[in-house]
């Protein structure tokens, strides 16, 4: 656990952080709003006191109430993983700024988050589905994704009668939406 990193982050990004810096084992976690996300990441990358030059992971999270985009960064200056959570993205129209200008390697990870959650990354020039077919209707990792219903709308609809489900209204009846208090 790198205490110095937490102090440095608080000093540098004080008002930008939505919650105080959290640390557990070798992980340091900060939360920034959608508007501040790219500037914060740019500062973390460029400023020599942080030098978070490596983007290890970018992923979307659906908490059932909101969308999040989570970045994991690594720096040669610290033995800690830095987790930057961008919470509070509207579930009905998720939209954030793209990281491609800073890390071109984020392009496919953003495409994946778009494919799985429907999060739109503004500024990504190639934002299309990466795993699912182009004519696929929904986003599989969303918490309201209901498998049978979606299969009935997929290109294979009607192949096997067993897989054909009712209307979306029927489909949501009886299924519970998991919501995370922890995320």
């Amino acid at each position, binding site marked *: 656990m790198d205490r110095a990193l937490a102090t440095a982050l608080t000093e540098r990004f004080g008002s930008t952080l939505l919650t105080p810096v959290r640390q*557990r*084992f*070798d*992980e340091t*976690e900060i939360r920034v709003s959608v508007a501040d996300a790219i500037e914060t990441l740019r500062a973390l990358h460029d400023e020599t006191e942080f030098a978070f*030059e*490596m*983007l*290890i*992971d970018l*992923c979307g*999270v*659906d908490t059932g109430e909101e969308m999040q985009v*989570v970045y*994991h960064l*690594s720096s*040669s200056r610290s*033995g800690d*993983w830095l*987790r930057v959570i961008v919470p509070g993205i509207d579930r009905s129209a998720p939209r954030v700024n793209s990281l491609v200008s*800073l*890390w*071109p*390697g*984020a*392009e*496919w*990870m953003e495409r*994946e988050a778009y494919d*799985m959650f429907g999060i739109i990354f503004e500024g990504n*020039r*190639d*934002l*299309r589905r*990466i*795993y*699912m*077919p*182009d004519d696929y209707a929904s986003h*599989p*990792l969303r918490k309201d*994704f209901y498998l049978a219903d979606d299969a009935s709308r997929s290109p294979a609809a009607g192949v096997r009668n067993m897989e054909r489900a009712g209307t979306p209204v029927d489909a949501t009846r009886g299924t519970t939406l*998991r*919501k*995370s*208090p*922890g*995320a």
Partner: protein
Amino acid sequence: MTTPLTKPSLDDPRIAIPAASEWYEPAPTAQTERQAEFLNLRDGEMFVNMGPQHPSTHGVLRIVVKVNGEQVVDLDPVLGYLHRGVEKLCENADYHQAICYTDPLEYVASLFCEAAPVAAFEKLMDVEVPRRAQYIRVLTMELNRIASHTLFQGWMALDLGGITPILWSFIERDEIVDMLAALTGQKLLYNYYRIGGVNGDLNHEFMSRLGNWMSRAAAQIDSNLGLMNENEIFVRRTRGLGTLDAATALRMGVTGPNLRATGVPFDLRRDHPYLVYPELEFNVPTRDEGDSLARYMVRIDEIRESIRIIDQVLHEMPDGPVMAKLPRLIRPRPGRAFGAVEGPRGAYGVYAISDGTDQPFRMRIHDPSFVHLQLVGPLTRGNLIADTMAVMASLDPVMGGVDK
């Protein structure tokens, strides 16, 4: 009485020839700016499909290549042929079941795919792994790394058109696979790591096989290398091909041997230490050239370092239990954890979110091959078509992990 066979003629009215518009699939419509750029053909250019069943694509990958004569102008990898939705499956499985879903992600080195989620779950549960179990994990992971790298060596030669090295590299790999099979009961998808330890202590058969192999491993691997390192065709073909510089590699999110081949000594075992790696002595091999040959050489050096690590582990392994005391039903408190290990291809990471139930609320799996596959486009632009395969082989992606 049989009718005489006659040669069918196109004038025969029974033969219906479809109109030209039915012969060809309609060209896909561009959804994005980048795709529109890609689909726009200039004079003399054409599209060639590689895959999805091309023998040298390391799995089921399709690459649409835009070529001008023999030269690659641009390319667009099409993924998803192996997509199984592992992240979704894990959300609907309990913590123990989720580990075994991650096994087939990278079928060449599946112990690393287990190690990352196990590390994340252990952080969620706040459990200390017994020291003997930590040593066993390091031992088995390094064995698996050697198996993966020797297979890479053979694969790369195969992609360049040499058949012999893969036959030799399978000798070492088979020996390690049999060894791990004696330990875990499985040949490829081991499912050996548990939250809080490993499933079963080292057994006699494993140890005797390992001792037998260790006595000749270094010499055997060196003699196999002579097939390629001293092969002029191989060296000339790969030197200077697909050169990647350190700045681009960092911006592209490259990790593992591909990054170390550009001169950046980043290794999770050293920079984000886990298990007992801080107590072991090993070097982080790097090369400065950043070309396909450098990526090959870094992996060869890593094999030697792995043998060194195994040697130390065998000398220092303590006695004791191999499992921590944990309840059968894993139910971590709500929270988040990121576990990562240095695999043979780069950093495997798992970001797990718990909501207090016995199933992970979200389990993100980061696979390095996915990121590295993005490089195939930038590195092969302007090269010959045959070099696409050479560059891809040197990046060593495994499609099971790319497609998840």
